[in-house]
């Protein structure tokens, strides 16, 4: 005689350590199986888009730091590119290379956090997360040398970066570049071949590529389903057309695929930084003609950039004043989160947080 169960609704969050911020899910279970998920968010809403309307373009850079706070550099870059397009500012080459180096370092740091917490959700308490935090710490120390802050960098300015890198940055970066490939090998030894990880992740939360495209999901989540969509390659911004890199793809579109894509992307980022170091030339990092108060001509601009989590774009409307008339952020975390329900239905309770961690969202960016 089969065991009779009846649906039970559980509130997960908003104050829950595994929801990576203040996020709430109203989950309905049938026994151990998820039959319905309702994501509820907005607890971390700070009104960044509205605040941007009363700040000058340089001041908004500090707001972008606080959107996706584990990937501040890429946020800065995305916003700055949009302002430069709006105001017609051409950055000098050295400024662009420095921005690319910073952004790729940030991509590695963000993927380390994503993978580490994904494994933490999986039950691998301690080892992988601490090992990944160790390498992230090295990157944060590099950022501290570069711009004096570890998380809220505010490194970039319209027209380049605020200042050239200090002399002690380059040897430290070289040490990191020679050290990091071994560290990634270590992670692969530790996790990639692990039978428990495979048993827990293979074939869990599979989404087909058409659903992902229909929901306009971007980033590693889309590439894990085999679709070669990387804005650095498709719509090159900065100098990404001058560097060569592969786009790591996976085909299974499950939790394991999302993990392995991120691991491979870290290697590609290291390659990009090495190519940047080969091509960077001395010179100014910021044009002297850019005024302190930028008054772009009336118009609008949108630049999408490939951030660690997906396509991040800033849509700016200017009315000719010192502050934007409207600022709209296309946040990858929010859009990637929309498929949570489709991914979770039919899964078990234990896979709930694993799947949630594999999407790699950041509540600061979801709610803004």
């Amino acid at each position, binding site marked *: 005689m089969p065991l009779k169960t009846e649906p039970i609704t559980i509130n997960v969050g908003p104050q829950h350590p595994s929801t990576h911020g203040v996020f709430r899910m109203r989950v309905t279970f049938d026994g151990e199986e998820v039959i319905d998920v309702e994501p509820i968010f907005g607890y971390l809403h700070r009104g960044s888009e509205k605040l941007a309307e009363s700040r000058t373009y340089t001041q908004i850079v*500090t707001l972008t730091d606080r959107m996706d706070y584990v990937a501040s550099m890429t946020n800065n870059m995305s916003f700055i590119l949009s302002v430069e397009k709006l105001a017609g500012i051409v950055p000098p080459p050295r400024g662009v290379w420095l921005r690319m180096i910073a952004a790729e370092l940030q991509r590695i740091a963000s993927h380390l956090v994503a993978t580490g917490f994904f494994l933490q959700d999986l039950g691998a308490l301690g080892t992988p997360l601490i090992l990944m935090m160790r390498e992230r710490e090295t990157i944060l120390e590099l950022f*501290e*040398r570069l711009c004096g802050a570890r998380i809220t960098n505010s490194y970039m300015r319209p027209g380049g970066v605020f200042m050239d890198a200090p*002399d002690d940055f380059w040897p430290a970066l070289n040490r990191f570049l020679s050290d990091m490939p071994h560290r990634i090998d270590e992670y692969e030894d530790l996790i990639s071949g692990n*039978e428990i990880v495979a048993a827990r992740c293979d074939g869990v939360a599979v989404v087909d590529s058409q659903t992902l495209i229909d929901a306009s999901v971007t980033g590693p989540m889309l590439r894990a389903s085999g679709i070669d969509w990387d804005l650095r390659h498709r719509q090159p911004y900065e100098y990404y057309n001058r560097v060569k890199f592969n786009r790591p793809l996976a085909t299974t579109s499950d939790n394991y695929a999302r993990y392995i894509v991120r691991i491979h992307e870290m290697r590609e980022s290291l390659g990009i930084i090495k190519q940047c170091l080969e091509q960077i030339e*001395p010179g100014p990092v910021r044009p002297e003609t850019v005024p*302190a108060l930028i008054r772009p001509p009336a118009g609008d601009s949108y630049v999408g950039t490939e951030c660690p989590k997906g396509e991040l774009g800033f849509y700016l409307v200017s009315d000719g004043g010192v502050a934007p008339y409207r600022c709209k952020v296309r946040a990858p975390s929010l859009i990637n989160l929309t498929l949570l329900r489709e991914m979770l239905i039919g899964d078990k309770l234990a896979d709930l947080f694993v799947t949630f961690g594999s999407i790699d969202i950041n509540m600061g960016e979801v709610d803004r």
Partner: protein
Amino acid sequence: MIYGLGLAKGMGVTLKTLLGPSFTVQYPDRRVGIMGAAKAAGISTPGLIFKRPVKALRAVLGFERIAVMPTQAARFRGNEFTWYEDRCTGCASCAKYCPLGIIKIVTAPGGINMQEGESYAIETFDIDTGRCMFCALCVEACPYDALHMGSEFERGNYVRMDLVLTKEDLIAAPKRPSTWFRPQMEESAYSPFAETLEDMKQAGRHETPSVEQLTKRWVEDRRTDESVED
């Protein structure tokens, strides 16, 4: 593929890390053994045992602690702003540039600026660090190099009003400016953790380095990088 090989491989990494050096940074102090205590006291280990047996015993039992300062970069944007009063003209560029509007400046005519001559006398110069986010845009805006970021970070307080840095606080504070947006300090090999710059002349003036200077520096960097790799 044998089942369990991946697990064994992962366990190997764990064991390797277990036997490797620890990367945890103890803060604000760490435990030291008898040798560490002797080194911190500046005497030899037998000297410590004979001269200060209580301290030596404490160290053996693991009660002896020494203070640790975490490593910080010279550009670290810290608390405790460094402000040179004689340089400030009261132009309030910093207050206008601040995204949060937390700098309050009140001026009166009849002041003297050491570099620009006649200027405004500063009556109030308050920075509410309780709301400050240390973006350092005020430092970037200062045209006279009067305001610098500090290097301190231990500024915990029980009273919120104590977080407001007044003019008197800023004058009395130790002058350890951060090298953030001040290339002249980076070139003079100044370290905010080793020395203070009480005189404003020591802090120098911000000048954008020329392309020749940048080229020279960059070439020398590359040379040192290659020697490191060798």
